């Protein structure tokens, strides 16, 4: 029987939640790195016991931790993120040039084939890669040096590269997303990048259909169909059928098309999950009801999933990296909230229950499906 391991990053440490394939009885380990912000924890698809964690604090800066035993023990590894060459400037909030300054690692994406290769998406927005198990990091400067780079502006959360998708069918193709520059694709392993934002419309920028400047919150794909992408934007849920070359809106009947996470069912490439919230400033579920929405039609038509989720007086948020899906049959869906709950559904969203209720605010959730 298979097992699952849920990796949770919070404002005050990391937690590892484990269960057998039934996903009913859970063991909670942690906190690891208590008191530190853990923006992201993710395991290697090539070696599930190899896990990387982004550990940081306003006092002591950025650290990266690595585990080789599934999260039981950890070792600090390389934390020097030096921009390539003279970094230059991007735009500050007031439109003036602002030097590129490293602040933190938002997202770690281990290679699909090599446990020692891992990508890091950082603030100020740049993509780094390590090929030695995170001992050393090198920037892939072609992204930041894109012609539009000097015009990128931060969103409210900073100029952060928060999404990295590796194409399982083409090791030279990657997708990334930056708030608030938009989505980009490389077809040559990171040497050059192309903005892929045609079809996005953002009312909060001077040119709503500009090439860059969109606040993309998250992108997801199904590994069997990497040319089809789903996007949760600052407003609007979007879909691309041509690897990002063009997008169309699929928000359909959602009660709000604002949100952060988006993910795809493990076995049904047309089944997509989002968590609508109100905005621009409230960032909590409409009507105090925590509802996941699922589309079985690749967007446009959405059904609410509420069984086991609080349907009154709930005012939490679910952040962009805080949803994950395992590959069991039926697939499990997991998400964490800023209220410290991690909810799980072992039936693709039909029924939900909390694994834990009282963690620090959850920043990220990832899940590994493990063979016994």
């Amino acid at each position: 029987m298979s097992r699952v391991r849920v990796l949770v990053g919070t404002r005050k440490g990391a937690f590892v939640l484990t269960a057998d394939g039934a996903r009913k009885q859970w063991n909670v380990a942690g906190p690891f790195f208590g008191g530190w912000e853990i923006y992201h924890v993710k395991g290697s698809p090539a070696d599930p016991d190899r896990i990387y964690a982004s550990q940081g604090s306003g006092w002591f800066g950025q650290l990266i931790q690595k585990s080789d035993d599934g999260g039981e023990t950890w070792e600090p590894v390389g934390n020097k993120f030096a921009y390539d060459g003279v970094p230059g400037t991007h735009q500050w909030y007031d439109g003036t040039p602002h030097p590129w300054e490293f602040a933190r690692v938002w997202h770690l994406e281990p290679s699909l084939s090599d446990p020692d290769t891992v990508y890091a998406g950082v603030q100020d927005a740049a993509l780094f890669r390590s090929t030695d198990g995170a001992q050393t990091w090198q920037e892939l400067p072609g992204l930041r040096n894109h012609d539009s780079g000097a015009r990128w502006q931060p969103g409210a959360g900073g100029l952060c590269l928060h999404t990295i998708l590796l194409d399982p069918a083409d090791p030279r193709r990657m997708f990334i997303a930056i708030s608030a520059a938009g989505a980009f694709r490389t077809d040559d392993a990171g040497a050059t990048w192309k903005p892929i934002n045609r079809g996005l419309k953002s009312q909060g920028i001077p040119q709503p259909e500009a090439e860059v400047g969109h606040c993309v919150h998250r992108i997801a794909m199904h590994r069997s169909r990497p040319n089809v992408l789903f996007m949760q934007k600052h407003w609007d849920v979007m879909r691309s059928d041509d690897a990002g070359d063009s997008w169309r809106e699929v928000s359909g009947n959602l009660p709000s098309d604002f949100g952060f996470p988006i993910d795809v069912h493990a076995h049904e490439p047309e089944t997509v999950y989002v968590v609508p919230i109100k905005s621009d400033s409230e960032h909590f579920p409409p009507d105090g009801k925590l509802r996941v929405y699922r589309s079985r039609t690749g967007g446009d038509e959405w059904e609410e999933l509420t069984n086991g989720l609080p349907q009154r007086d709930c005012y939490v948020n679910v952040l962009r990296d805080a949803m994950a899906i395992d590959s069991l049959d039926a697939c499990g869906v997991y998400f964490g909230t800023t209220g410290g709950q991690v909810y799980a559904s072992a039936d693709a969203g039909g029924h939900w229950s909390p694994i834990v209720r009282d963690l620090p605010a959850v920043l990220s959730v990832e899940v590994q499906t493990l063979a016994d």
Partner: protein
Amino acid sequence: MVRVELPVHLRTLARVGSEVTVHVEGEVTLRSVLDALETSYPVLRGTIRDQITLQRRPFLRFFACEEDLSHEQPDVPLPGAVAAGVEPFLVVGAMAGG
């Protein structure tokens, strides 16, 4: 030997007690003490001063002999009592809630 007191999170990270001692070659300054500390405990690189600019992290302070040395130039000699190991060099994290 120079005595260095670390804040609790850095003690945990370096797996040491509240105070460590480091051997400093040459003159005892902010730079030479921090260089020696990072050589002995590489995991502390980047946690007290930025790895690229070598600037002190803004929420940390350096105290010794009842003086705030945070704004001293990196190559100014530290007090003789620190260099002699009589008084510790304190790395202090700003207090904050949350």
